[in-house]
């Protein structure tokens, strides 16, 4: 049985439909990503599952329990980190962990959590003095006070510096190795590709594709890309005339990007063209379609926009 089962989830805010018939499952020990731009409905979906919002329709099961009717029991089994960790300015990490732990039947020890999430030096410092990374680590530690079976992380690395982001990635991967299921929302494609076993691409409140990163790319109609640099400029019309080439873009006077239906045929045709024009190939790179290409193909927009 999957740890999380979401069926036909719906949520409206006035006239705006935030979630439309969203369905997915998260299996035990799996990191599942909700990938989409801001406003796509990722956070609303997560908040409906963990009980922060009441959905207008659909069903949610967590660990075999009805999350809408058995909310308190579900909360005993899950941990969640919201986008911004919100605590009283004057509270210390140790106090916060101690208080949160007191609400659970099976709570983890406070000291091991402080150790695990590298909060020892700041355990007795006030929350207002913690850095962004330390606050996020504390948020994760709070999500772990009940040794949860399923962990929900809402944009956990948003706004963090690269070092803190890498540290957090390690902690998330560790969760999977401990057998926990993780639902992660992110708008970072690299993060989704690095961490997630499976991804649901969300746009305008709908899940438009689900699968492993490899499956999504494989099922995509996005074409491989050839990037090359020649000794002499090449006429774009000559490149477009090559049978396997679908698209041409010039990066500079003698550097180009081509989308080709076949990597092998594209390289052969390009080499023949340059040889015929007595031009020299100085550099050549082959790029397979990425998750970003899949995203653009599916949504028509880039996540970076």
């Amino acid at each position, binding site marked *: 049985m999957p740890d999380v089962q979401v069926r036909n989830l719906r949520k409206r805010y006035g006239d705006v439909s935030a979630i439309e018939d969203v369905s997915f499952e998260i299996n035990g020990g799996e990191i599942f990503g909700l990938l989409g731009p801001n406003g796509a409905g990722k956070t609303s979906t997560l908040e409906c599952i963990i009980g922060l919002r009441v959905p207008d329709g659909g069903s949610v099961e967590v660990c075999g329990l009805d999350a809408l009717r058995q909310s308190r029991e579900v909360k005993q089994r899950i941990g969640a980190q*919201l986008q911004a*960790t919100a605590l009283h300015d004057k509270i210390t990490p140790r106090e916060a962990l101690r208080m949160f732990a007191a609400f659970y039947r099976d709570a983890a020890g406070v000291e091991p959590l402080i150790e695990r999430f590298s909060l020892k030096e700041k355990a007795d410092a006030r929350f207002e003095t913690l850095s962004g990374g330390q606050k996020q680590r504390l948020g994760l530690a709070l999500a772990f006070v009940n040794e949860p079976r399923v962990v929900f992380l809402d944009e956990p690395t948003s706004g963090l510096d690269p070092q803190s982001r890498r540290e957090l990635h390690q902690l998330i991967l560790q969760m999977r190795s401990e057998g926990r299921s993780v639902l992660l929302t992110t708008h970072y494609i690299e993060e989704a590709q690095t961490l997630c076993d499976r991804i649901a691409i969300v746009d305008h409140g709908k899940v438009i594709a689900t699968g492993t990163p490899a499956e999504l790319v494989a099922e995509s109609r996005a074409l491989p890309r050839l990037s090359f640099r020649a000794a002499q400029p090449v006429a774009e019309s000559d490149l477009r005339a090559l049978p396997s080439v679908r698209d041409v873009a010039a990066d500079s006077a003698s550097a180009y990007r081509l989308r080709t239906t076949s990597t092998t045929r594209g390289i052969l045709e390009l080499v023949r063209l340059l040889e015929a024009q007595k031009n020299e190939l100085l550099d050549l790179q082959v790029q397979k379609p990425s998750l970003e290409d899949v995203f653009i193909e599916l949504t028509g927009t880039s996540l970076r926009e």
Partner: protein
Amino acid sequence: MRGFLQHLRLTLRLNFRSPQALVYGYLVPLFFLIAFGSIFKTVPPLFREMGQLLTITTLGGACFGMPTAMVAERERGVWRRYRLLPAGTIGFIFSTMLARFVLVASAALMQIGLARLVYRTPMPAHPLQLFVAFGFVSFAFLGMGLVIAMLAENVPAVQALGQAIFLPMIIIGGVGVPLKALPVWAQHFAGFLPGRYAVEALQACVNGNGLTAARFDLAALLLIGLAALLAGAKLFRWDVGQRPNAGARAWTLVALVGWLAVGLVSESRGTLTVRSEPIGNGLMEAIVQPETTTAPSTTAAGVRSSSPTTQFATTQPATAPTAPNPPNWQAVTAADADQITYDDLEADDSTVTPIAHSLDNLPEDVKGQMDDLAGKLADWKPGHVDDPVERVRNLLSVCALPDILEDPNESNVPLVVFEQIKGSMPKDQLIKVLTWIALKPDEGTYLTALPELGFPGPLQQDIVRERAEAYGRKLLARVLGKYHPTTAQ
């Protein structure tokens, strides 16, 4: 349960880390203590105003302290995070209210302690009952605070809503300005506000008959608190984004219905108005006792002469006697007694040295209390000492203490005591003793604490002496037939 105890503990601890909370929680109550001590010149200091003072402290914590903290935390998203915990709304409401109760109770204790240290205010007559009454007051007010927290969108809105409740109660709700000083319409209006019942319940435990005299007030506070708590729980929101719709906002009416119901019941009982004091030249004159009551002047014969108000027919001009003083009470003559003047005495229906017209037609419970007092006095040892002057002084102390303490029976007690005094010696001897006491107001000592009779202390000897001496002359006037009943109200 363990979680809520942790939340309670942490809420208290965090409060003491916030300079702003400390200012509002302790410095403001300290300011009110000093302000009351400076404004109200009653004796003993602050004893009659303790109910008002403690009500203001609780009201401040409820209207501003608790909702400000709750709304600020909600704005930060702290409550949203709490919502993820496997715990219910009611538990968080109770732990938050309990934490605030501990804070306001500690501020109230500070006020009582400082009043004792700085102003020598007597300790409350019924401390444990005061704590119970304080619990009822806090419950009612913190329920209101919860409603404020749920209605306010942000911290500035808390201030606005809080002031809308706080100020009317302070000014015309019988909390800041005593009911006696308010016009009749305001006394009626105050009946529809919880502050009045809070003051009455607390004051009954400070210098009154305790909770038995405040049963209606306690019931009123309980009803107001329950209505507010119900409304607050229905309006409760964890998140800034959760805005109450019109239906939810209608629960605010439930809280107000509690106020209305209590006011209407009070109105039907006819208990909304109290005897007003003369306003004179201004409000302060009404709430500040004249200095002459605390620093009386004396004539050569030891007869006080200050206020011209009297209810005794003046048979002699209020001039200093010329006859030489007798050497002892036994040597007192009719001429000595005739020289005693009464024109400086307060009227019997005044707030100083009051005497009831009669003990007839008293409510059953009050009549029972007076019978009980008469029974106690019959066996009361200081009322049976051999020296008749000391005996009468002791018994006159029993009149003075409830007057100073503003006991609800302050006007009934003297009638009971007078009967006891009159029965303790022959009339001619009594006239001599009372005349002697009037001629020698600075001699002897009076009892300043009578806990065995329900009148705590110790009070200041000078103040007790002044009141007891005045009661002595009022009794003398009655015994001599100089009391003029037509002047009594």
